[in-house]
């Protein structure tokens, strides 16, 4: 009989679709939280929703000398908050999380818990001057338009891009691959939790606005080590002048991205090497995310308590924080395979050696 291990099949894609289409702007993660709790309840030993709204789940192993391993994936996504009612169905909004204002114009959005449809329009090209078109349209000139007359939208409501999940050939397209793909990965790992570790899962809130959920989650769990599972930009597009693209961050199709250094974390070198060796031993393709800016929840976790050895593993995706980001199914499958293999093989010996 084949070894039972987590896989990405129709059920996992269905769950990813459901989670990607849910709205969970940082600070308003309720819809995703409900789905996560429902999915993990049959498998977790203990589930707790903490003061910030993190879903914290544990699954105890059974062997001796078990490491407490924290896995983190954030539930929140970038989006918008309605900040003023201009009357007659027109609303002013602010962005929540890092969104390039050039990505907003001409998009459909869904506002509030009832997902009221709206659009972000722009002055017709016929009414613009050439000089005007050379400048981006600033946020304070943009509005969400939900049509005429009465609506139940309130100032303070969140909004997301309305893009629906789609599969195209080898790819997945969605507004919220970052980081629902990590959320589903954690759920699958929980279902197949290896007995050699105590698994501590944090489905974290407010990553996009300062890693707030992960910070307190790490305090709660006090784990021996932590792995943040996220989605990272793949900037693997051709350069305008035909020169080689040497700052691609990650490339689609090259497998899970292991972090060495980002703006918030110097990954624990023992964990980097362990993940790379595990991938090599299993023939799982992987890539190192190019050292540079950006960050994940590991940035908050590794500085918690007396220090928590941390690393991040991300699924590469293009067009981060836009209406439609894109990743490859194979990269996701390989990310899950690597994490599962790494969990199964991990022993306290890994951390008993000094950092190099």
């Amino acid at each position, binding site marked *: 009989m084949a070894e039972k291990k987590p896989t990405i099949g129709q059920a996992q894609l269905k769950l990813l679709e459901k989670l990607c289409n849910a709205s969970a702007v940082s600070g308003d993660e309720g819809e995703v939280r409900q789905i996560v709790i429902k999915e993990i309840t049959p498998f977790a030993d203990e589930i707790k929703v903490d003061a910030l709204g993190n879903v914290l789940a544990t699954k105890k192993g059974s062997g001796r000398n078990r490491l407490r391993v924290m896995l983190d994936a954030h539930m929140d996504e970038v989006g918008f908050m309605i900040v003023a009612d*201009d009357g007659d*169905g*027109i609303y002013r909004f602010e962005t929540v999380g890092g969104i*390039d204002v*050039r*990505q907003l*114009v*001409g*998009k*459909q959005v869904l506002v509030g818990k009832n997902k009221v*449809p*709206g*659009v*972000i*329009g*722009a*002055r*017709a*090209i*016929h*009414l*613009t001057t050439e000089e005007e*078109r*050379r*400048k*981006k*349209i600033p946020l304070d*000139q*943009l*509005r969400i*338009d*939900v*049509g*005429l*007359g*009465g609506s139940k939208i309130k100032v303070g409501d969140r909004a997301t*891009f*309305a893009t629906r999940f*789609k599969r*195209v*050939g*080898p*790819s997945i*397209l969605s507004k919220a691959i970052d980081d629902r793909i990590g959320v589903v990965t954690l759920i699958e790992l929980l279902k197949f939790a290896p007995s050699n570790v105590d698994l501590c899962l944090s489905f974290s809130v407010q990553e996009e606005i300062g890693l707030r959920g992960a910070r307190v989650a790490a305090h709660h769990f006090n784990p021996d080590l932590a792995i943040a599972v996220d989605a990272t*930009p793949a*900037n693997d*597009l*051709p*350069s*305008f*002048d035909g020169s080689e*693209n040497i*700052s691609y961050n990650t490339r689609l*199709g090259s497998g899970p991205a292991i972090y060495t250094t980002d703006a918030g974390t110097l990954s624990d070198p023992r964990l980097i090497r362990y993940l790379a060796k595990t991938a090599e031993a299993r023939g799982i393709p992987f890539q190192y995310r190019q050292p540079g800016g950006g960050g994940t929840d590991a940035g908050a976790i590794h500085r918690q308590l007396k220090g928590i050895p941390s690393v991040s593993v991300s699924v590469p995706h*293009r*067009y981060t924080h*836009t*209406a*439609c980001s*894109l990743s490859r199914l194979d990269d996701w499958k390989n990310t899950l395979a690597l994490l599962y293999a790494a969990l199964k093989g991990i022993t306290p010996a890994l951390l008993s050696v000094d950092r190099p």
Partner: protein
Amino acid sequence: MLSVPGLSAYESPVMELIREKWTPLVDEVGLSRLGSLHGLKRGSGKSPRPSIMIATHMDAIGMMVTSIKEGFLHVTSVGGVDSRVLPGTPVTVHATGSDRDEELPGVVVQPPARQLPPSVGDGPVPLDQLLVDVGLLPAQVARRIQVGDIVSYATEPVELAGDVVSGHTLDNRSSVAALTVALEELQSKTHTWDVWAVATTQEEVTMGGAFTSAFALKPDLAIAVDVTHAKGPGASDWLTHPLGKGPCLGFGPNIHPFLFDKFIELADRLEIPHENEVMPSMSGTDAYAAQVSREGIPTMLISIPLRYMHTPVEVVSIKDVQRTGRLLSEFIAGLTPDFMNTITWDI
């Protein structure tokens, strides 16, 4: 009609949909050599009867593939596209590279800053630097897509509050819908004149459809129905009109003033709310193509207010569409056999 492509010069998909809808409403349907759809609804008057042409353009703006690089597509625009609305916009690539034509979903993407010329900075990315990603591997793209393939907006239409709809190409499928409403209403009305319902092609580029249909059909009167700018975010000056407060009746050198007067009278009598839209020189619509056809045709322009023109999220009030249809049908039904003799410049 909002989910069906039909870029300028590639109108067949939408034309077929309109033809299907119009066929039971008219006596004859045909196509012009440039692809415009002609529906003839014969009048009850004695032959030879005068005829009126209602021109609504059915073509859409969009893009076209100019080159393919590492699995990504470079595109240019067909019609007036403000490239600032494009990053993140869903599109359909009408691929003709393989044995059978395919519709491939894709998205217009803004390359990361480091892959763009430094001059772009954080300003808008010009169209020639934007790319289309269809989610396929480079080899698949090279095999299935070719230069010259058309790319259409794929944003799904959505109903908003207050009888308002949003989608791409409401310019000018709203007007085709209004004309369809008029044809439906004419089923139970008597009209002495012949009516040419025309869905024109290529308005967004050359007005080629309207020029040639006006020539071919030789109507005595012409009415163009198009969209105009509605008041809304980013647009509130004298060029704009309120959304949902009725159609706009065009006034200016492109319009015969006698017809303008007749329409004002009619709208007032029917209590159809309306606005006057003054156009000091050009209307930028099929009304021009009709006006200068042959020896000249008295022409009227009715416009439906629309927000965010030429973006994938245009917004129109359904009520305005219905009111436009009613106004058209009532005008047609009210045309007397000797109407042409009553037209005067002294009003």
